[in-house]
């Protein structure tokens, strides 16, 4: 079967569509997985990668479209059904039993038996043979938990393929691996291809994509942007597709900065972050922010853009580096003290780090401002109502009333609630991490206008976005990041998508060259 020519793909997805509570997570997406091919799935957060995978693996059911297995329409009501069709998934975290032996883990759920009882000898022998085939040398009787994460990951892969898998899906498999382990894993991908397995490789690390994969599919905002052979695209083109602009369009006329006057930078920046460093995350990042200025942080997922914001906000411990506010260092490094000083942050992941879903709009908005709204620990209902009503009106939050649970709101309105939570503190610096992700077009325009308005009123804004367009249009200054390092800063008229992408891609190209050499 290896390298054999097949007329039909192992697995196909046709016009898959999936909605979650009114928002479209996936729209008309096609995907063909051929035997012996590694197919990369790339895109920024919220692009629909994980939704697509969940449709293939039976975690979710599509609202529209279909899944074909060897050309026949199939339904996977549960993940188990997908597994029975030879579709195996390997996640970022190893989903195995660390206290059981390696052999037990490899054969978990399908242990060889002899006269009805576990045939340990056979199991150990077969497990050792299997691992050997993938170049893994380990005592299979030892507990899995004693191995490094990389080897555990590899064993998860072996376990998956030993079940006669025809499709193996790897979801960010290298995110916790060391470089040497990554090499090993990519070797295994090669072996899988030789055996005629169709591999889906989800990663935001483009080097790996270019090294290991044959085809690439780019998703953005739940839609298929591009699909084709690795050889048919350049790194730069890929980045631009992910970040939201067709390469052809690039450089065709610059977009105005939302009609704002150029920012006048005073003597003292409102925020000065110097040499922010945290091992493996941030490497000597510096950033100056003046009143009325919008500094955009551009870069791919994993470039350190969110981490920079969190470090400034005191939510990420640093190995070294300082953050000064109006020329003074913060007394303590906690979000609470930053908020108290006037630095507010809108977190990247609204659901995980932002909203408190079961609480009302009122309680969500008022949460950060509690010290202002209370005397001797007692909250003034009147003050709270005033502020909450003001912001519901000002930000056009659509809800049945301030008592409505935030969980029941649309994404855009949830985001506005979080903005209101920050704005009612009257901050001087706003750190906005993906302020418009996953919200509808109308709300998006409102939020973008609000940002411009706030900056015009003298707030310093740090803006992070996966959409390059948003960064380019909204920023006075852009800091370009990659792998936790600053590649450069663009000011005013220098800012355009082409320049940013060139910087990111240039660095990537450079890295790959080093790797090959």
């Amino acid at each position: 079967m290896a390298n054999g020519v097949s007329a039909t793909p192992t697995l196909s997805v046709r016009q898959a569509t999936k909605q979650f509570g009114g928002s479209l997570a996936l729209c008309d997406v096609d995907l063909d997985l051929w035997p012996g091919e590694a197919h990369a799935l790339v895109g920024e957060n919220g692009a629909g990668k994980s939704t697509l995978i969940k449709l293939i693996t039976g975690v979710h059911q599509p609202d529209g479209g279909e899944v074909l297995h060897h050309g026949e329409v199939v339904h996977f009501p549960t993940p188990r059904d997908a597994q029975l069709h030879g579709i195996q998934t390997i996640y970022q975290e190893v989903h195995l039993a660390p206290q059981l032996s390696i052999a037990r883990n490899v054969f978990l759920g399908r242990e060889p038996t002899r006269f009805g009882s576990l045939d340990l000898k056979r199991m150990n022998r077969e497990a050792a043979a299997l691992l050997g085939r993938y170049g893994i040398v380990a005592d299979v009787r030892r507990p899995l938990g004693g191995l490094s994460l990389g080897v555990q990951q590899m064993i998860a892969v072996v376990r998956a393929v030993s079940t006669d898998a025809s499709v193996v899906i790897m979801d960010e498999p290298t995110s916790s691996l060391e470089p040497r382990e990554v090499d090993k894993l990519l070797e295994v991908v090669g072996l899988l291809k030789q055996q005629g397995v169709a591999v889906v490789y989800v990663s935001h690390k483009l080097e790996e994509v270019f090294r290991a994969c044959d085809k690439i599919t780019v998703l953005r905002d739940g839609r298929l942007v591009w699909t084709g052979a690795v050889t048919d695209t350049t790194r730069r083109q890929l980045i631009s597709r992910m970040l939201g602009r067709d390469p052809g369009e690039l450089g065709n006329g610059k977009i105005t900065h939302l009609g704002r006057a150029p920012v006048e930078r005073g003597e003292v920046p409102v925020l000065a972050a110097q040499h922010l460093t945290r091992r493996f995350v941030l490497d000597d990042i510096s950033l100056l922010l003046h009143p009325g200025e919008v500094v955009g942080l551009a870069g791919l997922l994993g470039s350190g853009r969110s981490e920079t914001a969190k470090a400034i906000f005191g939510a990420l411990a640093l190995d070294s580096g300082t953050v000064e506010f109006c020329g003074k260092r913060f007394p303590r490094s906690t979000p609470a003290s930053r908020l108290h000083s006037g630095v507010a942050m809108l977190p990247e992941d609204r659901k995980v780090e932002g909203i408190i879903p079961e609480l009302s709009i009122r309680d969500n908005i008022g949460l950060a401002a509690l010290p202002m709204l209370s005397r001797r620990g007692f909250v003034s209902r009147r003050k709270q109502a005033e502020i909450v009503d003001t912001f519901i009106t000002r930000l056009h939050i659509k809800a049945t009333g301030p008592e409505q649970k935030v969980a029941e709101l649309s994404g855009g309105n949830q985001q506005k609630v979080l903005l209101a939570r920050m704005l009612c503190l009257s901050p001087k610096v706003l750190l906005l991490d993906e302020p418009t992700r996953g919200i509808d077009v109308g709300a998006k325009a409102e939020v973008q206008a609000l940002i411009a308005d706030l900056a015009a009123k003298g707030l310093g804004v740090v803006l992070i976005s996966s959409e390059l367009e948003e960064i380019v249009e909204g920023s006075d200054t852009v800091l370009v990041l990659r792998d936790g390092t600053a590649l450069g800063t663009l000011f005013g008229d220098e800012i355009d998508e082409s320049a940013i992408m060139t910087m990111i891609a240039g660095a990537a190209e450079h890295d790959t060259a080093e790797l090959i050499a």
Partner: protein
Amino acid sequence: MTSTAAHTVGRSATHGWEDITSWVRQRGVYIALALVILYNVIFTAHFNQWDTVQLLFAQMPPVLIVSMGMALVIGTGGIDLSVGATMAIASAVLAKFVAPASSHGLGSPIALAIAMALLAGLAVGVFNGTVVAVGRVQPIVATLSLLVAGRGVALVITGGALVELFDPFLKVVRQGQVFGIADVMIVAAAIAVVVSVLVRRTTLGYRLVAIGGNRRAAVLAGVPVRSTLITVYAISGVFAAVAGLIATARLRASDPSYIGLLMELSAITAVVVGGTPLKGGQVRVLGTVAGAVLMQLLQTTLLAHNIPNSVSEMVEALIIVAAVYIQRPSRSAA
């Protein structure tokens, strides 16, 4: 999940029914309580008397008070398994201070003894809160340690045996009444009111449910998570101490082996039956009170009808499951 359109249609068609089920869902505990009372009124001899209420008022306060602290802790997404042991510690400290030298006590004035007992409860609570908030140990594990060790501490304090206490103030606690209502019940009611105000009107109340609802989000919204958690566990510890003192006064003795035994389970049951979700993010004070009354009344009812122990345990379990099932979050919200 169905599409939005289909969902909307489905909802309007069954509008009335959904209203009824959601009404029931939110009030499961009150409905169950009403049913148990109704059953008693009809079938239980000597139930329709003021004496019945008096008895309830005499027996309820410890579990009610402990449940109030437990509700706050559960609101933060935690749990306090040490409350029963804390009751025993408070009881033992009281006995140690107030008992005369002939019973190996210190013979201190009752006021000092009570203060020390409350302080012991506070210390236990602060310890729990610190382990949970600063040590980032799972609450169930953190408080389990004192569930196991706390009673041992209590036994060491009293020297092991039951100590009978004859202080006149304890008799006041046991038998005192204000306008015909047991004074311990008034204390319990006052605590319930305080907790209710705390939850609805104070920064502490707002913050603790935020932590329970989404701890990461709370941190990023500037909520002082550590001090909030420590305070909440400390409150639970002090409430448990108060309950321990009342139980001691009721028994006329400090019995560290048994005071508050399995109280953690009764309190958790009251909270959960009262509609507070175990995952935190919500505190239902009145529901918890109703839950505690329901469980107590249920036990009394089964006892009064002389139902064998094994059967009563099953009936109680059944009621718990039913009450929690009725109040489960609706699927549409999830």
